[in-house]
């Protein structure tokens, strides 16, 4: 069963046909070729597919594509403004807060969502908020430091 859905993706209107079984992740990657959002487990355990839907952080693998109709979705592709990196992205580079990079889009989207709600999180709050994203390179410490540093810079900016 095909559905014609339309939603806002990183500020731009999109229309797409999707099957009932397809997830938001499938729609992003396979139909729209927005492959910044990664597929890890497909069962909501790893968080690599994190996106925001109407400003709410979710696993895009746990939501049907057809449910996205009329929603506002933001992915890693919408994070930088042209060539200008988001402060979180810049700090991830400076702190070398990534190794293989598969979890990084999900971590960045999740961290941005945290800082929009809580511009001055404690380290504990950062760790709990990001606990839903698994980094199999286990580079968590640099990720947390980069998020804390970005938060400090963004508060000063």
């Amino acid at each position: 069963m095909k559905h014609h859905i339309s939603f806002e993706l990183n500020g731009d209107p999109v229309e797409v046909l999707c099957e009932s079984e397809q997830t938001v992740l499938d729609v992003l990657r396979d139909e729209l070729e927005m492959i910044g959002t990664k597929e890890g487990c497909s069962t909501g355990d790893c968080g690599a597919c994190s996106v925001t839907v109407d400003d709410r952080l979710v696993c895009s693998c746990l939501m049907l594509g057809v449910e996205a109709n009329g929603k506002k979705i933001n992915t890693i592709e919408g994070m930088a403004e042209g060539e200008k990196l988001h402060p979180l992205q810049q700090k991830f580079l400076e702190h070398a807060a990534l190794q293989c990079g598969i979890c990084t889009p999900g971590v960045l989207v999740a961290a941005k969502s945290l800082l929009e709600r809580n511009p001055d999180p404690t380290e504990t709050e950062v760790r709990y908020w990001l606990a839903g994203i698994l980094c199999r390179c286990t580079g968590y410490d640099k990720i947390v430091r980069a998020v804390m540093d970005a938060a400090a810079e963004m508060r000063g900016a």
Partner: protein
Amino acid sequence: MRYEAPETLDAAVRLLSSETGLTKILAGGTDLLVQMRTDIIEPDVVVDIKRIGEVRHIGEENGGFRIGAAITGAELEEHPTLSKIWPGVVEGANLIGSTQVQGRATMGGNLCNGSPAADSVPGLITAGAIATIAGPRGTREVPVEDIMIGPRKLSIGKDEFVVSFFLPPRPAHAADAYERFIPRTEMDIAVVGCATSLVLDDSGKITDARVALGAVAARPLLVKQAADAIIGTTLDDAALAKLDAAAQAACAPINDKRGTIEYRTKVAGVLARRTARTAYDRARAN
């Protein structure tokens, strides 16, 4: 597979009644989509209930709270007054999964997924929550403890679904608490879960109590003997010992990789003591 998203209770019930194939209700999808992905179930029709107003409503009603079955954990946490009055209900629901999962997971789904270890169910049971269930003969009201009857088995017909939960009005000096044991800090399935809800009088004596245990039987249990062990007391050591024993006596757990029968039984007593203490301290403070 077909996807349907009815916008009224009647339309949803008509749809459920007319379907002959395997029909699954979609609320937050954090269990359903996993089961579909891992081929545990292959529904013919998925009925998304989130466009139905009653299912997505949360608010005060007749001195209590009405919580739609598809209100998410994040929405429960963000509600301005719910956590003050029912902290145990909210902390149970908020223990389910990660931040991402909290953005989608619902208490209606947690209950109807039918797991004996469901973290939000003991809190609903001790709150005395009444579920409103829609079906072909209109709606009916059922105490939450009567809905799950065994692992993956519910007392709800395939042409029915949970619309909302009603949490009754709360007197002064009342509070609840939920704790679970897992072998890590976050994001795991309860080895044992326990909720306790207490009402105190002005002197600190317990006048009403409800205790519920999860993951120690084929379904979450309301343990009347545990409540009786502390009613009329100020939760002194003797009362706590009786509570512990009554909680342990109610357990009929399985042995599995998460815990042995003996371990689960022992932990049930410990969590009954801890949640009673937390609920008591919270009730004294309000």
